[in-house]
């Protein structure tokens, strides 16, 4: 990787809740304040700010990053907002990386916030605009359709049944029981609970889906020379990648996320990773739906196509398995405040690699982890690889 070496040195987050009393900017401040405190830095140390937040329509606020900006410590600083839908949280960390790798800045505060609860009667209303206004919206689609169609394509291609996929939801909600910020942790949930939950848009049932959530997460990222001064446990950014596929989603193979593979290959190349199955020790793939974890593990080349469900059934992806997947509890368990959820995954890798994940700590001192997010019209992949 060329340019300045970049490390993550601090992280903080809010509790993830269904509806927060705090405004978006208050949530942003809570996370940003704790991220700075975690590495004993102050706003004076920050050269630039990256803000990640998903559609303005959630909040009904035009250019909501400007509304959030004071809570992000962004006033009178160089600021950028990146927005790639659900991929935003990981992309914000990538932007933090290239701000520093370029040599422009030494210290960057990355803040991702989402307050979905303001959108009434349901934030799905804000998502309806993802469908083409002329060829799709007159058919009355809702957001679940696109995931249900993709999930069915995946299940059909590999002959999977709901039970194979429900195991992911069970694993992640159980993992989240040990996360102090989690909204939906449940140590006792079973596959039967998932299979018996309300059918929304078959094959998607209530417990296959992550919840509407409010929350914020922040990271402090530094150039190497600063990182060594502020911490003896820097976590280095080893690779980044991102890719966008066609918006003609009905023209795409819905059973495989090619855009995730492209993002992963870019990140692996940068990190010098030639055998990801051996060289990646923990993974936080994006899991807004349970099948998406499986889909993404295959796109990340960590399992052969159609093989991630078997690995899940065999316990490989458990916190104490050969390849712990979503040890945080993921979006299914911790919650899904869109942009903040993606950055939560990067924060989880940071805490895990530093051995600071508490009750969630995966055994065996992992040295390299990967976080991935996904979004837009189901066709953007964002990947970051961290190592110690």
């Amino acid at each position, binding site marked *: 990787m060329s340019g300045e070496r970049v490390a993550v040195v601090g*992280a*903080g*987050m*809010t*509790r993830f*809740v*269904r*509806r*927060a*009393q*705090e405004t978006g900017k208050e*949530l942003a401040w*809570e996370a940003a304040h*704790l*991220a700075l405190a*975690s590495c004993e830095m102050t706003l004076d140390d920050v050269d630039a700010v990256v803000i990640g937040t998903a559609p303005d329509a959630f909040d*009904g606020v035009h250019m909501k990053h400007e509304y959030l900006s004071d809570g992000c410590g962004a006033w009178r600083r160089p600021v950028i907002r990146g927005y790639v839908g659900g991929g935003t949280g990981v992309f914000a960390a990538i932007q933090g990386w290239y701000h520093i790798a370029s040599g422009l800045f030494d210290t960057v505060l990355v803040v991702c916030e989402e307050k979905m609860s303001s959108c*009434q*009667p*349901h934030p*799905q*209303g804000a*998502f309806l605009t993802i469908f*083409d*206004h*002329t*060829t*799709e919206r*007159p*058919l009355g689609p*809702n*957001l*679940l*359709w696109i995931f*249900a*169609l*993709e999930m*069915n*394509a995946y299940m*059909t291609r590999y002959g999977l049944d709901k039970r194979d996929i429900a195991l992911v939801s069970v694993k992640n909600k159980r993992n989240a029981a040990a996360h*102090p*910020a989690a909204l939906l942790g449940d140590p006792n949930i079973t596959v039967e609970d998932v299979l018996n939950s309300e*059918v*929304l*848009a*078959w*094959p*998607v049932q209530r417990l296959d889906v992550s919840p509407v959530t409010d*929350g914020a997460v922040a990271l402090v990222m530094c150039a190497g020379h600063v990182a060594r001064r502020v911490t003896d446990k820097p976590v280095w950014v080893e690779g980044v990648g991102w890719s966008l596929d*066609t918006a*003609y989603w*009905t*023209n*795409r*193979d*819905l059973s495989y996320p090619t855009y995730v593979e492209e993002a992963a290959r870019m990140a692996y190349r940068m990190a010098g990773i030639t055998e990801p199955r051996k060289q990646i020790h923990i993974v936080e793939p994006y899991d807004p739906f349970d099948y998406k974890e499986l889909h993404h593990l295959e796109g990340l080349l960590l399992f052969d196509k159609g093989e991630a469900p078997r690995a899940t059934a065999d316990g490989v992806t458990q916190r104490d398995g050969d390849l712990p997947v979503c040890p945080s509890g993921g979006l299914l368990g911790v919650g899904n405040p869109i942009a903040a959820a993606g950055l939560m995954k990067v*924060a989880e890798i940071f*805490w895990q690699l530093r051995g*600071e994940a*508490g009750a969630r700590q995966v055994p065996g001192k992992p040295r390299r982890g990967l976080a991935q997010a996904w979004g837009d019209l189901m066709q953007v992949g964002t990947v970051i690889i961290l190592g110690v």
Partner: protein
Amino acid sequence: MEGFVYPTTYLRHQDFEQGRVLYETWYPNAHYAWDAGVAIGGYLQGLKAGRLLARHCPECDRILIPPRMFCESCFSHTDRWVELEDTGTVITFSICYVTWDMLRLKEPLIPAVIGIDGASRGMGIMHLLGEVEPQTVHVGMRVRAVWRPPAERVGAITDIAYFRPL
């Protein structure tokens, strides 16, 4: 990391019922009129005439539906309209029991991606299935468009009421 999780305040339903929290509401007043454009404009004219139209890319030789004036792979101008059959194959489907705001539907909707006969492989459009028992729908099912009567067509995707099994 427990020390770096903020104890954010979780509002519950009773907080609102009992008037313990204050809030403000607003209703956006935004209306839109979208121009269909060149490619989709032609597509809609075709639908009004009961024809399913695609575009051809001269470089990759694909037949593209929904039609587009440029090929996103070759980045070149598509060169002609191609009329397709109004039949196809279900690539994937869902059986949806809820509205976007999570109310239960009395009758489920069956959205599907339908690969249109004569288009390049994998080229599907989203539409609804009808005149079919939900439990009998399967990937690979052959279907045909059910058109609204000519007098009721307006040049919209809904000029096809739905697709039904062949």
